[in-house]
């Protein structure tokens, strides 16, 4: 039984640092912008980690705890450089890396499955078909399955806590 985790927000950021999807799960919904900023500022640390990882030729996706402010921010980067940023509520429990990695991998799978949707390309501008535009469009309002998957993961993470 993993310790109880509370997932406050999840952010997917593309390889070129465009936001793909940012979902917040904290109860007062008003500070959605705050998580935008958290995701944005954590890119600083991610940049650093990437450089450090590049120096050691590490292929580890999990970037570890990025920083702690009023939430604990964890980072994960897919091989295609999509960054998954997870904001966990601070608690006295020990957060094990393996749990965060599990969550990240689940999120990664959700993302991968959504990007594999062939209809994403349908609405991409035809003259400038780069993968990047397609990837970013995966999180747009039109595609709700991706959001549902992410919400599902969040529920799965927090449900044991509720039970």
């Amino acid at each position: 039984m993993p310790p109880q985790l509370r997932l406050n927000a999840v952010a997917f950021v593309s390889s070129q640092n465009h936001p793909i999807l940012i979902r917040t799960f904290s109860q007062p919904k008003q500070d959605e912008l705050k998580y935008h900023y958290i995701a944005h500022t954590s890119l600083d640390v991610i940049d650093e980690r990437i450089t450090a990882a590049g120096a050691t030729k590490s292929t580890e996706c999990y970037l570890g705890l990025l920083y702690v402010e009023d939430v604990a921010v964890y980072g994960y980067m897919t091989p295609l450089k999509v960054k998954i940023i997870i904001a966990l509520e601070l608690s006295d429990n020990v957060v094990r890396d393996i749990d965060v990695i599990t969550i990240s991998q689940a999120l990664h799978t959700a993302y991968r499955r959504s990007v594999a949707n062939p209809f994403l390309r349908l609405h991409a501008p035809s003259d400038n078909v780069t993968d990047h535009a397609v990837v970013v469009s995966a999180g747009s309002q039109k595609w709700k399955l991706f959001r549902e998957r992410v919400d599902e993961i969040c529920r799965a993470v927090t449900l044991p806590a509720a039970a």
Partner: protein
Amino acid sequence: MDPLAFASLAHARILLLPVGSIKRQSFEKWAAEIKSFDTVRLGDIPADTNEEKARFMPSPLAAGHLHLSYATHPLPDSLAPLSLFRPSDFPLGVIGVATCTQNDSLGSILGHFNAAMNDLFPADPTFPLARNCFVFEESDDNTNMNLGNTLPGLIVIPSMMGNKKIYIGTLLAELCSNILGGFATVVQALESPLGNEYLNAAMFPTMPSLSDMPKPIDPDTPLRSSLPPLPSYNSQPDLAATGATLRAKTPTPLSLKRVSSAGPGAPPSPYRHSSLPVKKRQIAIGAASTHGRLFKVLGDFFLLAGRTMDASVWYTEAIAMLKNPQDTVWHAAVLEGLATVQVIDAWSATQAGNALPDEKDPWADIADKLIQAIALYTKAPSVADGDTNSPFISYLYCRAVLRHTSLLYSIWSGKGWGPLAFASMLEYGLSSLPPALTQESSSSTSDGRLSFAALERLTSITGISRATIAATLTQAHGPWLLHLGTRERILVLEAMASVYGALGYRRKEAYILREVLGCIMDLIVCGREEAQAGAGRAGGTGLGIQGVNLGRDANRGAVGVRENDNTEGNQSVLRIVKYVCLVHGVDLETVKIVDTSRPVSGGELDTSAASEDASYELFGWPELQIGIVREAIAVAEALPDYPAVAQFSLSSLKSLHPVMSQGDQHHLYNTAARALATARRRGDTRSVAYWSGQPIISLEVQPLPLVRIPMEKPMSMLTQRRSDHVPILTGMTDPFLYNPRKLAAAQGQVMLVENEMFEIIVTLRNPYVFDLELSSMSLSTTGVKIESKPIPVIIPANSFHPVTVTAKPLEPGTLVLRGCVAQAPGGVAQEFVLPLSTDEEEQKQLRRRSTRECEVGRSKYSGLESRPWSKETKRGSQVVQATPKTVKYLQCKVVPEQPLLRIRRTSLTHGAVMLYNGETTTIRVTLENVSALPIDFLRLTFDDSTIAPAQQALAEGELPVFDTYETEYSLLHNPVFTWDSKRNPQEIQPGEKIVVTINCFGKVGCSSGALHISYSYVHRRQNTLSEPQDVFHTRQLSYPVLVTVYHMLECHSMDILSYAPDTVAELIAQAADNDTAGEARRALLNVADVAEWCIFSVDVRNTYGLPFEVTFERDQPDVEKASTTLLVPPGSMSRVVLPIKKFRLSEEQVSQPIPTLSDRQFVVTKSNLSSAEEQLQRELFWYREELFKYVRCSWKETGGSRSGHLSLRKQRMTHHMLKALRTDETRVDMSMYEVHEDEPDADPTLVECRGGRWLPKPNTFIYLRTRITNLSPTTLISTLDLTFEPAQHIIFEGVMSGIPLAKLEIGDSYEVEMPVTIVSSGRFELAAQVRRLAQPAGVVGRGQLTAVVEMFT
């Protein structure tokens, strides 16, 4: 030195104060001079003789340093409660800096100084402890200042003094000595039981007030008038004793320390002795209050005095005492002090040249202390003293966190635990970057930041990761910041931002900077409210933050009183705003601000950059960007800086409009418009440049109306008046079907005329969701001067909008249309050039675009390096721009003023003419010259609907030669319109009218035509010096004519018959029906010599509804004229018969090929006829031509006046006809003579001949005479063959064939006689054949004779 330096606890702060009317410049100069002393050697400080004050004084040989830091702002009042807790934050000394001029006396300067001091500090402050005023003599002539030294507290530094620096150093040392003395007095006060009570009374105690303290006994000691000297002789004996012991004891350890100061490590054991009196005293004071705090204050003062040994001793004592009663805050402060002591010791060690101990992490101990301190601050019972203490605790907490950060950061940036790190810890705070970093960064990145690699290298050297530093720093950021006073909060946030920035955490930096901005804006708004309330606070100086203006530019009251704006602070705030936006990927300066008061330098716009705007790549985080932009605009509005508001909103509109909602776009646009209007109203000379990208899509010169287009013709055309060249046939003179040059020439320059309006269509684009307004748009041209008015334009939302601009060239020459000058409302006009897109340019653009597109998806540069503007500089595959760019613009040629002609009236009704086929009529056109220039050149050309098909048929070249000729003939000799240039006038004076007569010929198939009247003013008055032009320009006037041609008479089946007896009889029989006409015709048919004539006949059919009279006329040389006329009723056909005398054309004429009338090239003979056939064809052609010359036919309307010409040209000639028409080469006449038997000597007589038949008698001698006449144009040598049929009944003498004939000259004749006898009755055919002997061999003449013999009559 920075207030936030790590070692700030050891810095004695000195306030530099401008006094009197000192200029800012000179103040800064002298202040810099003073500031150059950041340390004072302890040995240099003069010792005070007063024993009371000597407590903190160094011994004369002390090796340490006193660290100084300078401030130009006093600490805000709000922090006053910390005065005893944190003395290092307070100005311990004050130096007034003044200059003396002739106007000021020293007395007044002193007065100013004192007044300023009173103004700045409360009536009863603990600090400053010492003060002095330096008066710098500015010029040599101030001799009246000699008395200066007499005034106390005022030191005049004469300008002629050589080494001011040494002098100032001495003065500073003196001041330090005073400060140290001051420490002693303060401590004295605190050592009293009352003082100690005060010290322990609250968490942040104050000095005992004056009234509580006993009066001083010694009046000479006061350092300053406002603060009464603290008692040196204490009236309270019990504490005095302990105090005395303290005083007595301290010099001993000090002296000990000096001896053993070489060891900077752990404090040696002898110092433990110093704790002895403490224990003693603790007993004396009692348990009510410990001396922990007092010892901490002592430690602080020793630290400030540069005596680290003593400081650490007292600190250690303090810790021991503070631990037990849990005075957490003071405990933490002691820990901080200890940490500082260690750093100072390490620094002194390096200063002394000692090697550092080789430890793993030497700073770990310090860091531990600081971490402990931070933890203690967090635990501080802020509620204990009510809420009043929480700001201070928060402040101290943040300072501790920053100190820790500073430690880590300095070590990190100083590449490890070494002198560099110490120096930066001692001297530099967090808000200013240490020089080591900035030096290095100059080579790494352009914006003064380190590259990632450099940052990482620092990490690997020091073993401190950036994340560690950042994590430490993050502790300072939290809700407790709200407890801080605004100024402190700004200070803390600023420091945080700069550290984040230096670490390369730029997004975090931007995030913190936003909070800084929030604080600053709070202050501005507050300050403005205060100002409005009439408090009139001078603001600005009180704030320790660079570049903040405390709302001095607020409007006061309802009356529009406006102070002179000081915008310097605004600029700094805006700089922060822009930086924050840049980090988020929004460039707020894409739209430039231009100062309209200065003339705009006509810089060449980079068109390639403008065109690249189209493919502007979006970067970043739209949600955040829009929020950030809103904030930026709100800041600019609050300042208020209206041009900046406009700049920001327009820039963000420009770069973010693809992701903005409609409402946002509207809002931003309106905000910008409002801000610009306000700025203008307030007389701001700045304005924004035109912002909305390249608005012009295309530029097109509207061609002039057809009648106004001038056409360029070479002058040489005038000289060759009549050329053989027939333009009408040359529909296409070009030998090439596709001629690219021709196409290019057609595209070429547009012709415009001087002083005549022309129109240009400009297509504008608006990519936004609102209607874009351009307050003015005008043409940007070079070359010829033009007259054009700028026009306001509103481009509808999201659309392309064509606008027509009219202009008038004022002189001849070349007009270059570069583009347009557009101006947004309230903005500055900007030129947009639109070069012609040449192929090369297009290709280059294409290549560039594809390169960019190729790179668009690549994420080689991640993070902030992939912002569009930083990417641009790094693009790997730069397109080589080596070729000099020749930009071509749309060019127009402006020709000199031209006359203008118009058609006043014509003789046609409704522009239509109705004709019978072959009829000719005239059209009169009245022309009027409506210009002020005369016309001296007039040409008419025509076009009709028959020309083009004919020309096309000719051009295709598929026609046989004969048809080609016919088509050409029709084009050339029977044009629909003709005009005689000789008979019509050529010159038209201004305002004059002339009439031009044009002939119109009815030609079947013609349905429409056009008159083109070209005119010009060629022979202009020229300057004698100017070279005559080799071209002139014509204008053309066209008048379309609707032509209807009725087809009524047709000719059919032309035939030519020889004058055989039966044909004539037949013809006569035909004509015998009516009398008079028949008679006439019969008479016509009667010809003298039948052999010389032939009969021309043709059928004429009338397909029209009216009868026509047709007349055929014969006009042959050597023959009298004859004509025949007959009436052709509607729908019927009549045959016309006309005798024609045979003729023969010369051989040369006939052998000529069928000519082509045009000079078309490459007419390849398609026929593959044999030469004989070709010869025949030529003969047919030439004889036909000749025939049509002789026979003319015309028609006349019966009972009407209309007449015309009937064409025979459709009729073909056959070989048979040719034979009938052509005279033979030889004429062979055969005749018979008989000799009567009864009189044989008589001349033979002609045999009776009747009806073309000879009637000789049988069995008689008959002479057959054959007469051969040479009619051919050459000499003829030939033989004669005779044949008789039936030959068996004719007896003859001689040979029948090969009878030689004499050589016959032209026209000569020769007779051959042969006696024959016919021995039977019957019909005999005698024939003769002349055969040419020379080449070409062949029969050249035939003769025939028919004899009918009747035996029994």
